[in-house]
């Protein structure tokens, strides 16, 4: 993993990153959210981050997006340090956050408009609308879309900039189980077609196993990466194959949900 990361421009490398926030009840003390995190994602890999809520997954993603700054440590994309938000690192949230005042088409082309390249790349808008299967909804406003469709638009909007890395912050978390499974295939299809490096934050273990090359398990207070598991299953993966289930059991074991419940569950 590390060897690849040094050569490829769309790899991610995070070295000893820490981040703390002011405690809500006492602004003078700072509470660590991430502590000494190091990992790397090779170009073209799909890596998942799983862990209970409050373990700093989203904070980490915001740092990678450039929306927040780390207190210490280094975040690199290829060999460039990450300092500001950039179109080369797309971000999709759990809430699709479509601009409600723009139609589907205008939402998708927002990135092109923002970078001032709409005129040259107008063709691509149609291509991306087809890619996510929304051609007939070009002129609909976001509130006419179902959750799954809205999230597709959000994906297309992020992908139209051809980002080197796509950061996914529980993008399917708000969808119902059936839509979610279909969208997992959808994201995988986009990933396989484009080979964009993806970092997926999720709290769904099945989703992580189904989709990723590696799974990083985070623990809270302060957020740390407990361990990294490589998923060696062939694609397309079977959600009910014995290997899949065994891996699922292992991961549950790791995060103490299988046998003795975690501290969070007890309370």
């Amino acid at each position, binding site marked *: 993993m590390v060897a690849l990361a040094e050569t490829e421009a769309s790899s991610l490398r995070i070295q000893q990153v820490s981040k703390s926030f002011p405690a809500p009840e006492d602004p003078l003390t700072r509470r660590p959210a991430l502590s000494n995190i190091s990992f790397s994602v090779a170009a073209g890999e799909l890596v998942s981050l799983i862990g209970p809520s409050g373990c700093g997954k989203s904070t980490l993603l915001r740092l990678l997006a450039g*929306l927040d700054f780390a207190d210490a440590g280094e975040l690199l994309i290829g060999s460039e340090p990450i300092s500001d938000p950039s179109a080369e690192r797309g971000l999709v949230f759990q809430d699709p*956050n479509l601009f409600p005042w723009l139609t589907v088409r205008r939402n998708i082309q927002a990135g092109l408009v*923002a970078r001032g390249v709409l005129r040259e790349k107008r063709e691509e808008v149609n291509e991306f609308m087809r890619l996510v299967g929304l051609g007939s909804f070009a002129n609909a406003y976001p509130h006419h879309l179902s959750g799954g469709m809205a999230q597709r638009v959000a994906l297309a909007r992020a992908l139209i900039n051809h980002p080197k890395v796509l950061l996914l912050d529980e993008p399917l978390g708000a969808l119902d189980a059936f839509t979610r499974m279909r969208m997992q295939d959808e994201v995988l299809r986009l990933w396989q077609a484009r080979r964009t490096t993806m970092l997926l934050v999720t709290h769904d273990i099945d989703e992580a196993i189904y989709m990723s090359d590696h799974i990083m398990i985070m623990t809270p207070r302060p957020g740390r990466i407990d361990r990294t598991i490589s998923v060696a299953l062939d694609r397309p993966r079977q959600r009910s194959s014995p290997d899949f289930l065994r891996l699922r059991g292992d991961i549950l074991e790791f995060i103490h949900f299988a046998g003795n419940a975690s501290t969070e569950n007890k309370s």
Partner: protein
Amino acid sequence: MLQGEEVTGCPEVSRPAPPSHLTSGQTQPESDAIHAVAPASKLRWRTQLAVPIAALLALGVHLLFSKRVPPVETHSYTLLFWEILGVSIVLAIAQPFWTSLRRWMRHMCPIFTAAILLLGVWDVITLGFQLLPLPYFPGPAAVLRSLINDRALLLDSTWHSLVLLLSGYTLGVIAGLISGICIGWSTPVRYWGMPVLKVVGPIPATAWIPLAMVVSPSAIVSAAGLIALAVWFPVTMLTASGISNTRASYLDVARTLGAGRGYLIFRVAIPAAIPNIFIGLFMGLGASFLTLVVAESIGVKSGLGWYVSWAQGWAEYGKVFAALVIMAAFFSTLMTLLFKVRDRVLVWQKGVIKW
């Protein structure tokens, strides 16, 4: 792309209402909601006949009471009712063949009936039993006569008011949008600008009249300035709060799409603030009416405000009421126009909020 068909075929895509919904629903906003049950069904007799019956009733009351007044004074009023009667009967005959007219009538008949009956009640109170002191409360016939007799001057006054109002309002809106956007977006501007806004803004614009008269060369200019000031405050306040309350996640998303400051302000923050901005525009419009009328009745020598105080000076209260009727029509038309603009601009909100 290869799987395109498979994707569009999934049930999740076909579930929500098609967007065409949006454009067709826009033409008849509230009548649809009330009468969605049977839009094409027949009008009931009661609805059809309400307006002519009310007109007959009001006319009868008027003819009964107006015997002691010279007929020339009430001629146009009786004529008006004959016209209403005639038009309503023609419409009642025409409506079976014209669906949109029927829908309109079903919606409007009750309110027209009520308005006509109200005129009748006014007639009874003033002309009939003379319960209100004259000359301060003339009957509807006298008001209508003033309206018709003095139409040239009233039209001229309305025109002057319109010009003054629109110039002041436009100026105030432009200034308010600029200052509101600056205060809403930039922290240093907010630090220095907000106190000024909070201290100076709440002073009613009319309180500046004595000062404005001294400072400005002409009454018209100072009146336009005062109207602009009255509009500026709510527009600035609401624009600033709209801009600064832009959902942070919209800005985050835009930044990860490669947006610079211009995009963030003009394509994210301002569109997000538009609902708020319109509230400011409505409040500003109300404030501008008030300031217009006060400024006109004090300094400016033209316009509806001036007309009212001039007519009052001659104790011609029929004309005062006539000017009030014109003002009601004039101001409510402007309000309606602003509503139409809002409906057009905020079409994306349809279905998100109740309107």
